[in-house]
């Protein structure tokens, strides 16, 4: 079988693109080298929907950011993904930085960012009582927001699969050969043929492009380390708090997450190893010291976890979302670093436009549905709704994760969803089971048992996140 389109990489760009092109009467495959969607940059980033004042005016990055930001609310509503439009603040600590705020403001105006204001220390303190006394002024961008990056990816992939996209996991592309009418992909799941490929491979986008004969792209993995703090301190700030950006990025932020935790980070360091997800003692110390410059009371003592994400930094620091000039069957969506999450809806729309032009006879399917079925979220329900739900299905009365109040029913839903969970981390990202204070200490063994039962395998086959990340190594006797 030959696919019309194979999308390489099921991060937020790939999944949102899959959703966007799933409206066409095309055969589409979404290929992912890991055991789940959102396993690269999309699972470990700040989760910020940027307003769009950072990028260079006139750049694609600026255009996609501002447009994506404006589309985010509706996208999240359709996909039932939590989104909060809480606005962002860039804090200036010196006269020099106040000048910088003015520059950012000017840039924002040129980029079309609505409703920005530079606010005084007094107003800043009213908006954010816990901000450092050393803060002098801030740039307030009310259109910024927060979203859970992996939940958006999961939801988009579910929507795409529901609309007929085939999701193929553990499918690493090893080589690409270009034929007359199609491309042949040599993958860890065998040979896959496609008329067009969309390269959404994140930090590996340059390697994929190269396989298809396009050596114009160079991606550097830029490592960022984070602390995630307990929900008890989630309300320390109301807006996303940035410091003035540098050439290495937007700096270390203090932000609420949509789940009510507090996020500190990221550091920014270019690394050679594109799979280097280790945290470092130095990096985490740096996050602590810089975050406390903005908000003195934040403390790593409240940390429930720390993690590292890799951003796909293009040397040109510009999004590349276009048909390759070297191979007309290759559409690149490369260099998607921050504000890639914010831009995802716009990038997906842009790619759908490219596809529409390349394949002239494409039709929009009459039964295309761009929404996702709302997942059950027991912890957000009223007692009446809960009573009703348990009556319908007793599995929703069995609480598996105590810290986050996640029921067995929700875990079963996560496993059986389109492009559903196949490992412990997959269940965790979809349901929050194991994401609370005990970090899976109690529910981990239960989640493993449920996965084994539902997938019809032994417990010793179950992994944390695919590959060889097995939880146990065998039976005791």
């Amino acid at each position, binding site marked *: 079988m030959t696919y019309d389109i194979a999308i390489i990489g099921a991060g937020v760009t790939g999944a949102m693109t899959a959703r966007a092109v799933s409206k066409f009467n095309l055969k589409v495959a979404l290929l992912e080298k890991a055991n789940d969607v959102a396993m690269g940059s999309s699972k470990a980033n700040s989760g910020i929907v940027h307003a769009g004042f950072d990028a260079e005016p006139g750049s694609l990055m600026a255009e996609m950011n501002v447009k994506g930001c404006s589309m985010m609310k509706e996208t999240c509503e359709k996909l039932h993904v939590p989104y909060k439009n809480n606005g962002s603040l860039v804090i200036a600590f010196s006269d020099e930085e106040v000048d910088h705020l003015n520059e950012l403001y000017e840039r924002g105006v040129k980029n079309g960012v609505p409703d920005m204001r530079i606010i005084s220390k007094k107003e800043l303190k009213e908006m954010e009582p816990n901000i450092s006394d050393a803060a002098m002024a801030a740039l307030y961008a009310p259109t910024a927001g927060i979203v859970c990056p992996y939940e958006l990816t999961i939801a988009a992939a579910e929507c795409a699969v529901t609309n007929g996209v085939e999701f193929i996991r553990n499918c690493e592309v090893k080589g690409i050969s270009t034929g007359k009418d199609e491309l042949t992909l040599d993958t860890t799941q065998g040979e896959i043929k496609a008329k067009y490929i969309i390269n959404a491979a994140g930090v590996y986008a340059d390697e994929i492009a190269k396989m298809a004969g396009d050596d114009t792209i160079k991606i550097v993995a830029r490592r960022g380390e984070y602390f*995630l703090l307990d929900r008890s301190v989630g309300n320390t700030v109301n807006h996303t708090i940035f410091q003035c950006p540098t050439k290495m990025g937007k700096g270390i932020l203090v932000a609420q997450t949509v789940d009510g935790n507090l996020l500190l980070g990221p550091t920014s360091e270019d690394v050679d190893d594109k*799979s280097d*997800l*280790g*945290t*470092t*003692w130095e*990096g*985490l110390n740096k996050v602590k010291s810089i975050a406390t410059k903005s908000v003195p009371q934040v403390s*790593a*003592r409240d*940390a*429930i*976890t*720390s*993690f590292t994400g890799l951003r796909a930094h293009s040397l040109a620091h510009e999004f590349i979302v276009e048909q390759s000039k070297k191979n007309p069957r290759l559409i690149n969506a490369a260099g998607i670093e921050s504000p890639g999450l914010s831009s995802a809806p716009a990038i997906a729309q842009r790619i759908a436009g490219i596809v529409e032009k390349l394949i002239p006879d494409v039709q929009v399917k009459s039964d295309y549905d761009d929404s996702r079925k709302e997942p059950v979220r*027991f912890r957000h329900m009223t*007692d009446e709704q*809960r*009573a009703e739900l*348990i*009556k319908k299905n*007793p*599995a*929703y*009365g*069995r*609480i598996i994760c*105590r*810290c986050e*109040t996640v*029921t*067995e029913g929700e875990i079963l839903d996560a496993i059986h969803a389109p492009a559903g969970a196949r490992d412990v981390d997959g269940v965790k990202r979809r349901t929050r089971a194991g994401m609370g*204070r*005990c*970090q*899976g*200490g*109690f529910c*981990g*063994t239960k989640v493993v*048992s449920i996965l084994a039962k539902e997938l019809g395998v032994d*417990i*010793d086959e179950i*992994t*944390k*996140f*695919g*590959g*060889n*990340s*097995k*939880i*146990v*190594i*065998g*039976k*005791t*006797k």
Partner: protein
Amino acid sequence: MINYDLVVIGGGPAGMAAALKAEECGVKKIVILERAESLGGILEQCIHTGFGLDYFGEELSGPEYADRFIQLVKKSTVDVKLNTMVLSIDDNKVVTAASSDEGLLKIQAKAIVLAMGCRERPRGALQMAGTRPSGIMTAGTAQRYVNIEGYMPGKKVVILGSGDIGLIMARRMTLEGAEVKVVCEIMPFSGGLTRNIVQCLNDYNIPLKLSTTVVATHGKERLEGVTIAKVDDKMQPIPGTEEYIDCDLLLLSVGLIPENELTKQANIPLDRVTKGAVVNEMRETEKDGIFACGNVLQVHDLVDFVTREAQLAGEGAAKYILGEGPKEKVYINTTPGHGVRYIVPQRINIKSGEDIKLYLRVGAIYKNARLVVEADGKIVSNKKHIKLAPGEMEDVLLPKDVIDGLNQDSKVSVYVEEA
């Protein structure tokens, strides 16, 4: 709405003992709400022996100790609802719980005993660099895999933290054929019982490295090794002392935290040190008619002490329900002095008319020191201890005649007098 006189939340050793004691004291309608599929709580996975030496005068395993109480509950009038997780407690003592069998339950209680136990501190609270592979879990999770599910979580083991569960698992993993390479403890002393160091580590030649921690984990999918390092007196790693250890399993035994989400949600004040509720001598919290006992109140070393504490709470709850409590209530606080980290109960009713035992932990290791109980500047007792250690809970007595002589401005404190 269902009505019960007493709702006990948690069916582990604390919950069962509290319910049974309340029944013995004359309470008629009692229910235990247990989230697991059976009674017994964490004892079910504690298959090592050493339980019950104090209470039963016998050396029992965890499940055997639990079974003694399970059989008593079966014979009693106490109702048990399994697979039932309490979601909230409101100001009028209405308990809301989810159950797969009975749906969403609303139970009106006259009194409530909190007996939810504790949980293990996870990795996140520790600053540990490196990757996030599989093969890192708490000692308790590993204990469940090995003892109940029958699976081995790894073959080459490093244990971080010398709490009792870590020590017990060092022996257990060794008996199951794993190689336990080292137990690292960031503090200059072990948090576990001395007997466990002897019979779990020394017996099997497992090294215990004090003032040492795991600074980094290695391996992308499955754990491949850890880096350990010595720490200074501020618990920061000392450069140059790093050592790589090849292992496929890192067990964390870095402390237990009372599980008080429900307590917090019910707006019951907590003690900052114990992380359990602030209670009086009957283990009543600052909310009338809500009691707490066992590891949800303070982390115990021995289940025997949990049982005794739960019986106090059960008796207190019974008196509350039956209107037999002390007629007069004048509370004073108990104050931990030099060397003492906390005291339970945190406050006592000086009109209670009974002897009161104070339970406490010290903050460091003391040799040949005295534990001094002082009331209004007078020394009540000053027993000499060959050794006082943070890992071993101590108790002191405040006799009735001393309590009777106190007034609302009195000060009671316990402190360590070093040799």
